[in-house]
């Protein structure tokens, strides 16, 4: 049984916009990244899983329950962190999260205890008793995560959880999500348009583009070694390229980098020796890894070359 399984799931908005186009994919428990450009259909998919939107065609199942007919049962064990603002300004985080726990069916005393636990988990201490209108974006995002976790869901659906955060806040949020997923065993589906975030947190990736499935696979398979050696020298890469080609290696110059096909360990020695012979300083010698961005480049049919910078 998959955690989430979609079968030709389609959503057409009034006006004809196709948000999801016969999307078929099975998602297993783990920390899953749902990646795609803005408007690719990520939020639409999450809202259909929650029953906030109705699908136009196909079917979706969560915990092997049908989204269309068993929504209530699903929603008791799902947590949702929306992309946009969803916090009233005039009540405190403590009171709000407690109310949301009750709304998930927790008894009064248990709700209070869970609220306190989960606010501590997301790192909100004294501030929790102040009205949320005065919170920073970082604190608001933490409260949004806390209300999604307060009833101990089996599945957490996060829509752009780092939206609006500064770099430090983003790092903290990603770390919090990673810990929640890996240490506490809550399955997570996290939507993001930033590949770098997905790479840091997720172990499985579902890439969608214009409502269609681009690829779904374990993250490792996207970033395996590519058999290419990335070489940086302090000057005249062209000279080194000519020399290595003369040695019988397959070389290509890409801006300031050299990309050398790795044949065996001797390839590394050959590069080193050539640099010494030419009197060039060797700045970097690194097996090139694939990046998630390549995936989207491939899809767009652009230059199919694993030659550009790593994903941020």
């Amino acid at each position: 049984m998959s955690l989430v399984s979609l079968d030709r799931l389609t959503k057409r908005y009034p006006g004809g916009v196709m948000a999801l186009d016969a999307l078929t994919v099975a998602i297993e428990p783990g920390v899953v990244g749902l990646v795609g450009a803005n408007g690719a259909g990520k939020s639409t998919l999450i809202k259909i899983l929650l029953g906030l939107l109705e699908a136009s065609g196909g079917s979706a199942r969560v915990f092997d329950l049908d989204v269309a007919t068993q929504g209530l049962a699903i929603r008791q064990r799902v947590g949702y962190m929306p992309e946009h603002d969803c916090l009233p300004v005039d009540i405190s985080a403590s009171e709000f999260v407690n109310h949301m726990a009750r709304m998930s069916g927790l008894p009064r005393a248990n709700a209070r205890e869970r609220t306190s636990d989960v606010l501590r988990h997301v790192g909100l201490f004294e501030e929790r008793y102040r009205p949320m209108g005065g919170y920073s974006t970082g604190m608001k995002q933490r409260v949004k995560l806390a209300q999604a976790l307060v009833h101990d869901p089996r599945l957490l659906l996060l829509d752009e959880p780092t939206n609006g955060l500064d770099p430090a806040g983003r790092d903290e949020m990603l770390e919090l999500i990673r810990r929640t997923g890996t240490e506490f065993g809550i399955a997570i589906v996290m939507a993001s348009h930033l590949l770098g975030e997905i790479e840091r947190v997720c172990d499985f990736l579902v890439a969608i583009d214009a409502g269609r499935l681009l690829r779904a696979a374990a993250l490792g398979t996207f970033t395996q070694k590519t058999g290419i050696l990335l070489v940086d020298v302090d000057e005249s890469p062209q000279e080194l390229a000519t020399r290595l080609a003369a040695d019988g290696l397959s070389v290509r110059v890409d801006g300031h980098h050299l990309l050398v096909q790795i044949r065996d360990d001797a390839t590394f020695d050959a590069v080193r020796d050539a640099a010494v012979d030419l009197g060039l300083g060797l700045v970097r010698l690194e097996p090139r890894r694939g990046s998630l961005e390549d995936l989207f480049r491939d899809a767009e049919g652009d230059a199919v070359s694993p030659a550009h910078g790593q994903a941020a």
Partner: protein
Amino acid sequence: MTASGSGGSIYDLGYRGYEGPRLGRGAAVAALLTHSVRTAYGLGRSARSKVMPVGLVLLAVLPSLLALGIIALVAQIGPAGEAIEAISPIRYSTLFPFIAVLVFLFSASQAPELFGRDQRAGVLPLYFSRATSRLDYAGARTLGLLVSLLVLVLSPQLLLLVGRVLVAADPVAGLAEELPELPALLVVGLLVVTLVGTVSSATAALTPRRSYATVAIIGIFLIPNIASALLVELETGLLGQMAVLLSPADVLDGVNAYFFGVSPDNQTVAQAGLPGWSYPVAAGAWIIGSLAVLARRYQRIEA
């Protein structure tokens, strides 16, 4: 955060799972109902949000307190006082028309708090993605407003009843004297609360803007009231008389007169001369129509 020197974090108990009971949908709806009543009276919120609802309740019980004062005084005078009491304008059958404006004001100020705030802050997706459905939400919020209004509408009546029993020379006989009034009092109270509450809920649900909702609700209770007065005055025939049924305020006055068996407080309602039963029927139609608008709104609202 850390214990001295050891480097061990003593406060970080980590995340714990929850193995306790999950009461589900019914408990969630009950929690939202309670939350709504608390919100309507500003409990758990700033002092400023309590001023309006609590102030209105105090104003509403004022006539009853006044009436009780008079009764107590009259009891001192003896038989001569009974004549004075008989002409006292404050009794069960006149109390509601007396405080009607307060009820409209309460509803117009608090219904937007219950329905508009969640729309404004974007909280609806969180409610709709939990153990409740969209209609559960709308129902619990509406019921919350009705309970809050019931406190406002019945407090003065019950205060008057309890006071009269206590002031009576023989409380037991006094109770026996007052009890026959109770059914009419409760039926009118419930009808008033349900009509005002559902009409206000449906109106408030249509907009996230508090000021618009407040003005619209006051408008619904006030404008048709004036329009029907004009139409009845012009004596446009049966159609003109029916206009009072399109005015919720007039309908409520008719309901009050019908169940207490007195003549209507409002000149327009008296002049329209429609059969008494037409008012409870019209009230029912208003309530059903409002609930339909409310359900439709929450089934379609984007979340």
